[in-house]
């Protein structure tokens, strides 16, 4: 336990038990992200294997609406950009501006999750739920796991907004934001593969 980390937050116990240095933590977090990447990789492989097995049910071509997917894509891409602007604000120590950009990212991400829930509800309502065919099972699992990650990212962003306002920009909040930044940009990377191979490929 280093003296420095104790002196950062004399009031909070939660912040006082870390003596890790930043680069080592971000490297460890990167290794976690890569293992998460393998989870998505396996889900993509499953989807690729099962995508033709519609079992007489509707195919993606009849179900998906590309303008809607373009909207989801835009929300996630802009949220990646606003998060980047937040990290730049963090770099120069402007915590007010950082919280503003984190808030913007939170709203955009929440809108994305909202659109996805709406899409899923519509599919289930139209009789194209996950039980209809192997294609739809694989689709719901792959896109659902990504959506779940985005939802967890939203919780994390909300937590970091709280921590930055409460504790300020100390070494620990900076380190956590660096990890969150990797996580959020990573989710956008996964979404690029989702809209290409799940949605657009159906119409190619």
């Amino acid at each position, binding site marked *: 336990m280093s003296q420095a980390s104790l002196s950062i937050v004399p009031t909070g116990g939660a912040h006082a038990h870390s003596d890790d240095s930043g680069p080592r933590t971000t490297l460890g977090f990167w290794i976690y992200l890569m293992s998460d990447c393998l989870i998505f990789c396996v889900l993509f492989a499953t989807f690729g294997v099962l995508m033709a097995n519609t079992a007489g049910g509707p195919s993606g071509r009849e179900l998906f609406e590309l303008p809607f997917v373009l909207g989801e894509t835009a929300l996630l891409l802009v949220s990646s950009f606003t998060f980047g602007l937040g990290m730049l604000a963090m770099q120069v120590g402007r915590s007010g501006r950082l919280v503003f950009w984190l808030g913007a990212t939170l709203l955009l991400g929440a809108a994305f999750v909202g659109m996805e829930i709406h899409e899923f509800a519509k599919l289930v309502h139209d009789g194209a739920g996950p039980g209809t065919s192997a294609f739809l099972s694989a689709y719901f699992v792959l896109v659902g796991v990504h959506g779940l990650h985005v939802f967890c990212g939203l919780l994390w962003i909300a937590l970091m907004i709280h921590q930055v306002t409460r504790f300020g920009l100390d070494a620990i909040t900076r380190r956590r934001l660096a990890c969150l930044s990797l996580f959020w940009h990573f989710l956008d990377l996964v979404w690029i593969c989702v809209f290409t191979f799940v949605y*657009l490929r159906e119409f190619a």
Partner: protein
Amino acid sequence: MKPIQLHAPSRTFHHGNLSGYVIGFGVSTLLTLASFGAVMTGLLPRSATLAVLVLLCVAQLLVQLVFFLHLGSAPDQRSNTGIFLCTALLIAIIVGGSLWVTHNANANMMPSQMSARRAPPKD
């Protein structure tokens, strides 16, 4: 243990600069629009569309890895880049292998195009 420097400008993390994020965002937007445009306008011949989509996808992944995730050959980024390359190899093996094996299984072992109605008569 080295004491942590408080309130000092962070030298340990790389978060890029504004122009990097603007370039990354701009190029990603163009590539996304190109992907959707290639499919929604129907300008391309169907056989070429999938190849174009894959190219645009890989291009956008690379752009975001460099400009948003700051992967590169700088000394403090090398370990991240190396781990990523290993993961990319694993992904290629898992996805490519799965698709290859099941395609062969479908093509050679299961007459999935055949149904009782369409099966040729026995005699």
